[in-house]
């Protein structure tokens, strides 16, 4: 019914993130692009595990036992924490680079080349 729309959204979000990583010159913008890609992958994992009409994989007083697949959710949890860790570290690098170079422009942050 949804024409795989969640997957298509995932791909568009990943595409936007990759676009930002390729064409934007600001380092923080690149980090934002990276976190977009990562959110896209997370959404991909969760929507892989969805079963039509399923309920959350938790036994409570809900009547049904037709549940969505739990494994992708566990994987996504791991992925989210890894994502925030990566983002924090990259941003700390950005801060130090700005302090030493006085800029965040990728075209100027290239003292290492050849």
């Amino acid at each position, binding site marked *: 019914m949804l024409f795989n729309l969640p997957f298509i959204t995932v791909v568009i979000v990943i595409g936007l993130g990759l676009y930002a990583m*390729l064409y934007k010159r600001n*380092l923080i913008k690149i980090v934002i692009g990276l976190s977009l890609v990562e959110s896209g992958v997370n959404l991909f994992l969760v929507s892989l595990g969805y079963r039509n009409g399923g309920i959350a994989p938790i036994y409570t007083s809900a009547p049904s036992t037709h549940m969505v697949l739990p494994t992708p959710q566990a994987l996504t949890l791991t992925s989210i924490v890894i994502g925030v860790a990566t983002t924090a570290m990259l941003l700390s690098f950005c801060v130090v680079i700005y302090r030493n170079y006085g800029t965040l422009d*990728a075209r100027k942050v*290239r003292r290492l*080349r050849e």
Partner: protein
Amino acid sequence: MNPLGNFTTPSGFWNPILWLLVFLILLLLAYLIWKRGEESYKRGTMQTDPFLSGYGPESKEAIHVRAGNIYWGFTRALKGYYSFLRKIHTGIINDYVGWYIGILALMLLLYLLWGGS
């Protein structure tokens, strides 16, 4: 499984101990030949200094060939190649990602068109 034995390669074998023995014998031979050389030279006298048409030798720091000058001819000969290499090493992070994406795209094309069983 003799650790000292030789191992076979697709077209032969290799035994480092044997090689080492041969090498040592050759070294001995070389030493003997060297020993037979002129013995009248004395170290530390004028005899061992280079003769530069009367001028004294330059200071040692000056004659030390710096790293940037070694293989100058080689790099000069391959100038076009090296200028290309220097051009693609931009050091811009976007290009790093770009190369990755480019190779990924190439690979995807390759696999989707030719790869597979």
